[in-house]
């Protein structure tokens, strides 16, 4: 396959795109549009930036995939609620969706999966944290103006593979391991979620969930890019 060098400029407004070395998703800091490289060229992705619901000025915006998915299951699963995580049990809407899926034969439900599209280090396992928390209890998103956003590592094709892993993280034991789920993505978008830095933690600006600051794989590079953009402006 021929390898080409594509100029790192926004196809929409022509602004230079700033990104980390290992990024696979690119966001324009001027017009806010998002892109991934597919078939040797740019492909646009729908991007929204969420206004913080909690007090404080966001330090970073980190990209999350939100994938509307049709999940189908042929067999019936008897739910043992004692095996479900507290995030699931605390959200009646999500629990009733799961009941619809598990307790009827040949059932199909529509679910929105939140998956971090930024890379993470071993200090924070991607699957059993924010992805599952936001999926079980989706935050209310109020769109805001485009914000500088970097660190998009996982492409749509990668994110789809992670959906099943998020589904498995809703339970403590092995209730779901024996079943085959059919997962069909219907709609995709990127949501930029604001994070505030508090000491060695990053706190999300929508629900107040904490992750380690250095759990974000390219946080140092993101910090440098943020400073450079501030200086340029």
């Amino acid at each position, binding site marked *: 396959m021929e390898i080409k*060098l594509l100029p790192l400029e926004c196809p929409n407004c022509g602004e230079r795109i700033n990104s980390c070395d290992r990024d696979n998703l690119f966001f324009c800091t001027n017009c806010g549009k998002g892109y991934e490289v597919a078939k040797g060229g740019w492909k646009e992705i729908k991007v929204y930036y969420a206004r913080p619901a909690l007090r404080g000025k966001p330090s970073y915006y980190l990209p999350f995939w939100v994938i509307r998915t049709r999940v189908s299951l042929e067999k019936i699963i008897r739910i043992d609620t004692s095996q479900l995580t507290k995030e699931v049990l605390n959200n009646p809407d999500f629990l009733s969706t799961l009941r619809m899926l598990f307790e009827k034969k040949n059932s199909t439900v529509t679910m929105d999966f939140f998956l971090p599209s930024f890379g993470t280090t071993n200090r924070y396992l991607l699957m059993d944290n924010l992805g599952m928390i936001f999926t079980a209890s989706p935050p209310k998103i109020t769109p805001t103006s485009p914000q500088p956003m970097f660190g998009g590592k996982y492409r749509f094709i*990668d994110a789809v593979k992670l959906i099943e892993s998020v589904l498995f993280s809703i339970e403590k034991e092995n209730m779901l391991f024996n079943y085959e789920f059919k997962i069909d993505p219907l709609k995709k978008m990127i949501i930029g979620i604001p994070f505030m830095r508090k000491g060695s933690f990053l706190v999300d600006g929508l629900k107040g969930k904490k992750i380690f600051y250095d759990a974000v794989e390219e946080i140092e590079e993101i910090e440098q890019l943020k400073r450079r953009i501030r200086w340029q402006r």
Partner: protein
Amino acid sequence: MANTIGFSCPNCGGEISVREGVRVAACSYCGSKFVLSTLFGAERYFVEPKITPTKNTILKYLKENSTILDIDLFFAPVIVVNSEIFGWIYAYKKGKIVTHYEQDSQYKSKPVSTVKGRELIKKSINVMKNITIFPEENIPLGLERLDLQDLNLKPYDDEKMHKYGSVLDLPENIDFYLNLAIKKMKDKMLEDYRNFDELKYRLNPVSTHMRIYYYPVILSRYKGGTISIDGINGNILLNKEDTQFSLRQRKRIPVPLFTFILTTILSLSSVFLNWKISTGIFIVFFLMLLTKNYGD
């Protein structure tokens, strides 16, 4: 050290060096930034040879008075696949069987065995794995001894490579090696859990990336063996004595003697037993033909 990939800047023609696995490149001359177009499938690179395939180069590694039959330089494909593996592993850690004695209603003691320490493991997986595959398994070249660190990779250039030597094709298609690499990665991850009970897993490879390095190897046949040399640092990869060659040599020794004895016996027989001379000659030639084929 990471390998680097060299490109020419589309803006100013300056050399752009990109670290392997990195998508974004900047030209140090004009400052333009670029992103590599290929994200999936196989990227192909080659490494320029630093060792010249001459007789003198080869003779340095062989015994004195060795006779070199031929020397070839070729680029052997080496496949490097990296991927992040996400998912879950579920299994029971085996416990120890502990036996104790209990007294029944008739005050007789009975052994009772129980399993202690059996523990459920449900582990979330998020790891980066890297694997190297040498497709030329059927040609003994010693490729597994190649040092694949700190290489100066160049984008695959058929014309340039053929100026140095030939290029070996992949024996199978790309998907075959991609699947093989993922299978090997998963097997390696599950190694620690093989002795566990009820092992179940769902492992998904994400951001799988395959690169094919065409690595220069010098191969030379000499009287009595074959030697392969790393075309970058000159290290011997394999020096194999040709056992079949030696065997042939040993087999050839008795052939003239065998032929001589047979010829003598048959010639004498034809004279003393009054055979027709033409029959004798025919038999001798027939046997000589047989022994020659046997010798080769």
